[in-house]
């Protein structure tokens, strides 16, 4: 949603509301704005990050009570109290959200529900502080915010700020990274995205907005009791995001407004409102998983040319990067990897030299992909080590490889279907961004220069693989072969010193395989060391400088392609006469 027009229209309509509506609409409008302050933050967690935090209302509760207690018992200024509520929300957001790193989706959803219940129960029990069942008054604001419209405009201001900030984050490398861990977590790790660090930042931010929303909510309600923070409310926030569509700001914004207005407009439905929300949720999931955002996504309805072909431009590799001569090699030394009793790799020595293409072939189950996974850090060897130069490659930390200049592709393309090709490719250079999360949220200069730089590099990579015309297209509209090249472009964007390719030719036409070969050679000539795991013998013998043949986890043969072609055991075990 690049266009500012829809946002401008909504904002202007909201500003004009006081001119022709009565106080009732001020309350409804303020409510929609307050909820949006929470939902916008939650959108980053749920819609972008894919973390199903159903019990997020816990943070609204905490923010409400913090702000109210500070004003009622300590006479703090309400705005300071709101900020304090935000801080408490931020810290609680991390506590509520952190289990996401350890637990599978459903379990995490349940723990957030558990947190929501705990917070409400504590509010009920801790009478001396929270007033228990009777609750306490919300923060009262001074003029001009003590009138219905004054408060409405204040909330509108908060809503506008939070819309702007989350839209900025969504369009930054943080937004792209969130979507990456949502839809392609394994690939995200390979490009250096640390799920833990990313989620902590996002939980802090979203928790803060939820806490501030809590303070505003307490003022809107004039008085808060534990029963105001119901499970229904939590579900409503959640549904607003789903109805709006994942990976969108505008969709959930519209969704939130609709869901706030719905019970007011359709009053006979009040008794059935929760039932209808549930039907809506089910319907959206089954019929329109993309939500309102998918409906509004006009640009991706334009038909693509059906006679497209992929024409890489290998000569452009040097423009993207040129590593120059002699650099460190990747060396595997006596690596053993066992799954239970099965030795997938049984004492392997291998060297991938910079600037050379190293082929890795062998029958199915011989350990090729497993070797690649050891190098890229997903598996930890039981014995032996993988080195980059003289440094041991750290165990079990695949997200550290990108910083060491190691990039890879996957046996089945792991691409984010709902993001554009360009966004997918930009992920490859995520770790080269310099701007912090807040700089991105506020579009400060360092963020803008990041985006310019990363966009330029990603476009250059797309030119190299020949997919530049498709840059703005949603990735799930591409053909399989195009997706393979997208993965390569993603890897190249990071200007890797080593490129690990896992069966990149699978599913490609003969023409495409030829072009792929030329491209890989050009990459190697620019100084990158390439490990090519493949079944297509022709491709291997065409472009490889060295070949290692695996069988049952051990090296069967190693040498130049000519050596391998003639090797008797290789021929009998694998190649055939």
């Amino acid at each position: 949603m690049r266009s500012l027009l829809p946002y401008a229209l909504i904002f202007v309509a909201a500003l004009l509301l006081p001119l022709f509506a009565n106080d009732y609409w001020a309350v409804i409008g303020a409510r929609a704005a307050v909820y949006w302050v929470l939902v916008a933050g939650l959108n980053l967690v749920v819609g972008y990050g894919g973390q199903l935090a159903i019990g997020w209302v816990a943070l609204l509760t905490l923010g409400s009570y913090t702000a109210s207690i500070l004003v009622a018992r300590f006479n703090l200024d309400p705005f300071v109290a709101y900020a304090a509520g935000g801080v408490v929300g931020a810290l609680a957001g991390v506590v509520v959200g952190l289990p996401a790193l350890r637990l599978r989706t459903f379990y995490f959803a349940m723990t957030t529900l558990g947190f929501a219940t705990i917070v409400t129960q504590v509010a009920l029990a801790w009478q001396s502080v929270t007033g228990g069942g009777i609750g306490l008054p919300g923060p009262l604001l001074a003029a001009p915010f003590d009138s219905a419209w004054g408060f409405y405009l204040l909330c509108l201001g908060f809503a506008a700020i939070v819309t702007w900030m989350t839209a900025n984050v969504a369009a930054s490398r943080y937004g792209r990274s969130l979507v990456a861990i949502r839809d392609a977590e394994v690939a995200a790790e390979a490009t250096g995205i640390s799920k833990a660090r990313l989620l902590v930042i996002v939980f802090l931010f979203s928790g803060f907005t939820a806490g501030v929303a809590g303070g505003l909510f307490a003022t809107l309600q004039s008085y808060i009791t534990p029963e105001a923070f119901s499970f229904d409310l939590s579900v409503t926030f959640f549904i607003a995001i789903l109805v709006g569509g994942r990976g969108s700001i505008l969709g959930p914004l519209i969704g939130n407004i609709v869901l706030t207005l719905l019970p007011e407009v359709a009053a006979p439905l009040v008794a059935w409102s929760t039932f209808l929300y549930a039907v809506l949720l089910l319907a959206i999931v089954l019929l329109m998983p993309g939500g309102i955002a998918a409906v509004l996504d006009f640009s991706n309805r334009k038909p693509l040319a059906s006679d497209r072909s992929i024409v890489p431009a290998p000569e452009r590799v040097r423009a993207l990067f040129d590593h120059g001569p002699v650099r460190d090699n990747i060396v595997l030394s006596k690596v053993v990897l066992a799954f239970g009793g099965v030795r997938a790799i049984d004492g392997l020595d291998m060297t991938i030299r910079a600037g050379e293409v190293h082929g890795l072939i062998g029958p199915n189950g011989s350990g090729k992909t497993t070797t690649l996974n050891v190098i890229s850090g997903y598996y930890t060897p039981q014995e032996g080590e993988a080195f980059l130069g003289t440094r041991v490659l750290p165990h079990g930390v695949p997200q550290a490889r990108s910083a060491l200049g190691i990039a890879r592709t996957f046996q089945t393309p792991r691409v984010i279907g709902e993001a554009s090709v360009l966004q997918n490719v930009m992920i490859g250079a995520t770790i080269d961004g310099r701007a912090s999360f807040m700089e991105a949220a506020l579009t400060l200069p360092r963020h803008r220069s990041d985006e310019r730089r990363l966009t330029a590099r990603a476009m250059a990579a797309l030119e190299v693989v020949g997919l530049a015309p498709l840059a703005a297209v949603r990735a799930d509209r591409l053909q399989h072969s195009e997706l393979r090249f997208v993965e390569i472009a993603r890897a190249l964007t990071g200007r890797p010193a080593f490129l690990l390719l896992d069966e990149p030719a699978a599913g490609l036409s003969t023409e495409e395989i030829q072009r792929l070969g030329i491209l890989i050679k050009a990459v190697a000539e620019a100084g990158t060391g390439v490990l090519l795991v493949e079944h297509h013998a022709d491709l291997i013998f065409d472009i490889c400088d060295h070949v290692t043949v695996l069988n049952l986890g051990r090296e069967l043969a190693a040498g130049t392609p000519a050596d391998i072609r003639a090797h008797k055991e290789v021929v009998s075990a694998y190649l055939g006469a």
Partner: protein
Amino acid sequence: MSPKGSTLTRRTLVRASAAALALPAIARHGLAAEPIRIGWLATFTGPLSSPTIGFDRGVKWAVEQINDKGGVDGRLLEVISRDTQGDPTKAVNATQDVISRQKVHAIFGPVNSGELLATTPIMARAKVPSLVAGVVNSLIDPVKFPNAFRVTPSNHQWDGAVLNYCQNILKVKKVAITADATGYGTSAHDDSVANFKAAGLEVVYDAVIDPAQPDITPDMLRSKNAGAEVMVSWTVSSGMAARMMNARAALNWDVPIVGHPALGTGEIGKLVNKPEYWDKVYQVGYRSCSYGPDGKLPKASQEFVDSVRGKFPLQDTSLWWIASGVDAMRLIAEAVAKTGSSDSDKIIGYWNTLQMWPGLYGHYSFSPTEHNGFLGSDVVMSKANTAREGAFDLAPGYV
């Protein structure tokens, strides 16, 4: 039940217009006089909707009666109801709706404490006269909320009636006090424990219990072992109340259970294992809605019951809810009639002058410094399992 925007039937309007046309004085005006709009906010659907349904019957009946006689000075009463579903956020929206969009002259409700706490400041800011039907003590403050008048007892009065019954009629020294783990329950529990102790009684056991707890035996056993002579219960959950009575019987423990009006809800009759388990249970009730030792209701109540029998059900509800609804409408109508205006300060000013106003439900007295108007001695204890047409027998020991 679809109460949104429910207005009067065309039939009543036609009748009233015909009556108006028959009077030349009013016929001279040409336009119909502006109706007296009353906002009625309550929990029509959702948990704890039974009281609302009862109140609503009284509201509708009273309004029909008044309008059939031509309304107040030719102005008909128009009730605008909103379902708040027990949700404070919906209650806030609804209150602002009836004040700013519907422009009501007075408000009755909400009935639920959590909603009332949120809506009272809004009504106060708009200076709308409001009749409060909830029991939370802090709702009434003539300084902060000069527009709010309580027309039911406060929780303090309820507790006082229970305390009085235990201390002066049952004449016990040791009590156990329990409540459920809800907003109302936790605060009622704390207030009750404090009051009983201050009165010199010994609270040998007290607990806040999860209403979904499937078995209350341990708490009953503890109370019994501590020597409690009465179980005081503030729970609103019929399930929990029934479990208490079943446990009491299983322990062969013959003590009275005394407390919240919910102890008398019809559902409990179906939930206890044997009907006699519901004996010796006494809940807060009202003289106006109690059968005396002679088996009769007070005169005004009996007349009311006789006149409405058949028009709407009485067996499935409590008479005092209906009576309260009737009184609320009459208080509003009378204020407009006596002051000749529906301006808020006139209505409020009139209510502030009431002394022992004889309502169907109780007697109300207000002054500029006292807005808890319900006469305390009208609150009594009733026998829980004696409901007939919504009214109960007085508990034993009253004169």
